[in-house]
């Protein structure tokens, strides 16, 4: 940096030098590999740019031409946090294309899995957010509460991360819920509800945290819609959109769509806290009214289908899968994950904040950069 102290008529009154702060792809501030370039003037972020593509593995390319059952279990490997969402949506594409009816009991168990996944994903988000805020006690508490969910997932699916529960026409036999497992889920939900309510009360009444996160990383309603934000990131700005209200799997359950109005970090965190309580509500209803009957419909037949697509609401927003079937093989796979549409919101939320809040502004949108690295083509309109 060169500074000229002589003040003449030509020099502007305040000489501001724009500095670029590059972070990543492997950096201590970012656990996942991605690259952020912050353009800083006077320690205020003027512009931000997020580049992804570091962990592109080409899952769609490997899926091309595989039998549909194999391809479905491969979609699970796209993301380790919302793995059930990917396999569920991919299975739903095949079911929609082949016209397969799914037994009601299997639908209920799929919803239980999805909501358990939402619980652990949101708790991970809150724990990570608190860690970034510098409040390690809350972070540790949330990690401890999250273990209850992970144990429930291991009990149902057999693995802590990738459970592989849905298959075409139903669910895997090992994920059948008996009375003992239902009892354990109910106990777990009681425990989590008590702990999360306790956490929420202490979190909201803590004036230090509230003053730290109020008004930071603001994303207005108009900007969020313009930048195609989805999921809880959009709902925290006051837009009442939730695909679960349109999904027929969620018809038997009553739940509220959580919105907050401010669009800052406080709203983003509170939306997730309240969604945890809603997810507990859905799981309780599903456990209470779990219908009897078969869990798998094996009477489907393979046939060639046109391009079929499916949207579902996952913990981070709207997930899209599409492919067509040709002689039992999967062709032309397209996956669009929620984090890729949230990147614009992340970049926008950084602008205008102090540089120390930039990481918080990125983390508030719940990024999952493993999901994000898909093969995309940008077309200039």
């Amino acid at each position, binding site marked *: 940096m060169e500074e000229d102290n002589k003040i003449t008529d030509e020099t502007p009154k305040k000489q501001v030098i724009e500095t670029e702060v590059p972070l990543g*792809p*492997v*950096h*201590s*501030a970012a*656990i*996942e*590999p991605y690259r952020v370039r912050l353009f800083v003037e006077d320690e205020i972020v003027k512009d931000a740019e997020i580049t992804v*593509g*570091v*962990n*592109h*593995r*080409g*899952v769609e*390319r*490997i899926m091309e031409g595989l039998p549909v059952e194999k391809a479905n279990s*491969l979609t699970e*490997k*796209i*993301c*380790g*946090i919302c*793995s059930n969402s990917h396999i569920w949506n991919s299975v739903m594409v095949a079911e929609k294309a082949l016209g397969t009816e799914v037994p009601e009991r299997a639908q209920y168990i799929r919803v239980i899995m999805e909501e358990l996944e939402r619980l652990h994903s949101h708790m*991970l988000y809150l724990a990570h957010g608190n860690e970034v805020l510098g409040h390690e006690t809350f*972070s*540790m508490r949330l*990690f*401890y509460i*999250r*273990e209850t969910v992970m144990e429930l997932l291991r009990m149902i699916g057999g*693995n*802590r*991360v*990738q459970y592989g529960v849905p298959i075409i026409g139903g669910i895997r036999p090992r994920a059948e819920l008996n009375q003992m497992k239902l009892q354990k889920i109910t106990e777990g939900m009681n425990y989590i509800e008590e702990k999360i309510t306790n956490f929420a009360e202490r979190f909201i009444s803590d004036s230090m945290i509230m003053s730290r996160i109020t008004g930071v990383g603001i994303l207005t309603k108009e900007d969020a819609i313009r930048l195609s934000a989805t999921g809880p990131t959009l709902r925290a700005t006051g837009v009442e959109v939730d695909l679960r209200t349109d999904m027929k799997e969620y018809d038997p359950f009553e739940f509220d769509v959580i919105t907050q109005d401010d669009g800052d970090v406080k709203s983003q965190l509170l939306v997730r806290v309240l969604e945890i309580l809603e997810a507990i509500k859905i799981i309780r209803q599903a456990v209470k009214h779990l219908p009897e009957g078969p869990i798998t419909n094996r009477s489907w037949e393979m046939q060639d289908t046109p391009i079929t697509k499916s949207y579902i609401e996952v913990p981070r927003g709207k997930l899209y899968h599409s492919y067509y079937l040709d002689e039992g093989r999967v062709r032309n796979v397209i996956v669009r994950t929620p984090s890729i549409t949230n990147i614009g919101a992340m970049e926008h939320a950084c602008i205008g904040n102090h540089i120390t809040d930039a990481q918080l502004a990125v983390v508030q949108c719940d990024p*999952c950069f*493993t999901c994000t*690295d898909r093969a995309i083509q940008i077309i200039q309109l």
Partner: protein
Amino acid sequence: MSLKSYSRARAVHVMLVYTGGCNGCDIEIVNCVLSPKYDIEQYKIFLTWNPREADVLVVTGPVTRHNKEPLKAIYEAIPEPKAVIAAGACALMGGVYKNINGDIPSEEICGPVDEVIPVDAKVPGCAVRPEDVLAGAVAALPLLLDAE
């Protein structure tokens, strides 16, 4: 036990590098180190994000093409003695992404990890279980403690 290894055993720093897996192993390892349930810190093993401070490098993921050079640079930056743990199926053999038995092997993957940097301990699983990570970290400790 020499004074050097006595003191080394009380401050083992683990660095986690994520080279493009599915995030599952990554979170399980962070969870294993940080969370109160598994709590690897009770064995005096700490998590760090600075390679110059680290003793043990834990690598997850199948090493995508863009991550190959950064991984080598991080390995070079760690001072001797050092140990490398490859955690998860992707780090051990490329996982599903490498497409080993497929018609065309994937061009995006440079892994497994032992083709890029030398590996001392291997932790299997998809995703790794926190108990196994603990066992792997303990298995790599003699390399650090017995080194001159």
